[in-house]
């Protein structure tokens, strides 16, 4: 996992680099926009993490230039600008995801991993499997240990999202964005109730539990 981090705040960059390296990535860092663009264009990165506001050349300009020259490396924007407008602008410029500062490192990690998976050309899957939990995407059927499990449409999408990210943390915000398709800030952890309902259906009568809560981060579906 080779990541380019373009961030002008040295402390922030330092922290992110440390945390990313700890998570097993190889990290290059650029301190301004021009340097970042040269590095991004010069070698093959798996993910670019760009600050929106950079000295020299801002994040939007970097992405536009890269996309215009055919570079499709997944881009995650980091920004202190938290408006929907800013988000829309970032995604329109060619960014793949947008994370608002401040964020928990686990959120960044989960999103970087999701981008890496998206980067690897995904073959259309018809079946997902985590341990003895199976999902047939064509028949819209879920079974665990051979027993059929009845899910509401939204529960199905929630489980599908967790299964597609099997073994990795999926944050609550990511679930809201990917399963409900709304970018908003819930005042209460509404997702938790949905998870506990889903848990009641896929984990309650089975062993071992697959759906884990990761403190301070989100959820992870994992076999064993």
């Amino acid at each position, binding site marked *: 996992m080779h990541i380019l981090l373009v961030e002008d*705040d040295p*402390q*922030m960059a330092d*922290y992110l680099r*440390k*945390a990313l390296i*700890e998570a097993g990535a190889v990290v290059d860092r650029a301190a301004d926009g021009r340097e970042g663009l040269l590095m991004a264009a010069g070698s093959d990165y798996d993910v670019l993490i760009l600050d929106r506001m950079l000295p020299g050349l801002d994040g939007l300009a970097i992405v536009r230039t890269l996309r215009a020259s055919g570079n499709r490396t997944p881009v995650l924007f980091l920004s*202190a600008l*938290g*408006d*929907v*407008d800013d*988000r*829309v*602008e970032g995604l329109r410029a060619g960014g793949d995801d947008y994370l*608002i*500062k*401040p964020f*928990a*490192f686990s959120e960044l990690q989960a999103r970087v991993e999701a981008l890496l998976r998206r980067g690897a050309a995904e073959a259309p899957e018809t079946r997902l499997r985590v341990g003895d939990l199976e999902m047939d995407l064509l028949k819209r059927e879920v079974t665990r240990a051979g027993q059929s499990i009845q899910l509401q449409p*939204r529960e199905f999408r929630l489980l599908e999202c967790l299964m597609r990210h099997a073994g990795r943390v999926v944050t609550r915000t990511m679930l809201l964005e990917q399963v*409900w398709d*709304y*970018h*908003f*800030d*819930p*005042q*209460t952890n*509404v997702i938790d*109730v*949905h998870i506990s*309902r889903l848990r009641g259906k896929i984990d309650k009568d089975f062993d071992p539990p697959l759906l884990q809560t990761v*403190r*301070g981060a989100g959820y992870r579906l994992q076999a064993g």
Partner: protein
Amino acid sequence: MRVAVPALRLRARLARVPRGSIFRLALLYVLLLAGSVGILLGFIYWSTAGYMDRQTTETIEAEIRGLAEQYRRRGLVGLTALISERVASDPVGASVYLLVDERFERVVGNLDRWPSESPDANGWIRFRLREWGTDHTDEHEARAQVFLLRSGLMLLVGRDIRDLEATRYLILDALTWGLAITLALALAGAWLMSATLTRRLDAINQTSREIMEGDLTRRIPLSGSGDDFDRLADGLNRMLERIEALMASVRQVSDNIAHDLRTPLTRLRNKLELLAAALAGSSESRLLAEEAIADAEELLATFNALLRIARLESGSRRAAFGPVDLVPLIEDLVELYEPLAAERDQRLDWTAGASSIVVEGDRDLLFQVMANLVDNAIKYTQPGGHIQLAVDSADGLARVLVADDGPGIAPEFREQVFRRFFRVDDSRATPGSGLGLSLVQAVVALHRAHIELSDNEPGLRVSLSFGRSPQ
């Protein structure tokens, strides 16, 4: 925020007719003009009809002087001779003479009998003149002076003023019509003038309304004629420019403060995260570090919410606006929050008045607003309560209703709940930042929508009304 919607439409309709002080001013002008024209016409009447009157008087007086001269020189015989001569030389009868004795018997003259009307102190008399000897009797007015001669005879000298009266009526008629036409023209002019002025003022009002709704970039259009209104608009525009510049600098400052505070807070949070990760499994220190992270996050969340509200309130950010169908939005919202309500044994229902109700807006912000309202309803309604959502459209407006049967909000607090950090519950026993409804109001204002809190008897009823998206 609480303008009733029908009143708004009524005002829009009224905006087409001139109203208010301008029209009153125009009416005052009409009255003044009518007064002036009345005085002018009165003077014209006096100087024409009055002139003819004075002319008659002078003629009569000259005639009397002639007769008196004759009487003094030649006595009664001369007088009667002269009267007879004058009567004979005036076959039309424009002059009237009558000399009578003590018993009012005619001595000479072209009047058959002495008039029954009594003269005034100066000896002037007005009477009806009856023409005789023609095939029809005809009455008209005459004016005369009467004298008592030394011999006890009485003399009346006057003039038929029939033509004079006719002319006087003609003049009076013309003047009356003139006044009426002047009044009508002045009224029409006043209406036109006040309509024009009202239109110019409405342009200013329209702009100020848009500015109040948050679009500070609006300016009052100038007509280009450089008139007083243009100068006023230009002055206001300059003022707006100044305000906008000041607000921008204030926003810049507060953004900088928020940014400057947020950066060290973020670093603090990040370091705590590294610290927590470095600490052993579930030691007490690790728990403390995790609590510190949660505290830092709460601080940051409040900061972000404040900044977000401030940005929304600046009101110019509508890039993500597009047509949004409220029906699936409410459906998704209910689907998302239903388990939370169910956990508190609350019922969460929704109804839609149509299969699709589209407004112009930002889908995520609208969802945020509804989510905040439903979240509040769930939070403040007792377990077992009932929360209802409804979306419908009427008269070109889309309306969303969120109603619960919880404790509601007392009328005196219904305006204040939108203020930042305001909590009805002073003890702050319920969780929350006190910013949820401020954000709701900022988003509502951004959408040029209206929000109204009312009593659901029991509970709280929140209604939002949006202008429909042009289809």
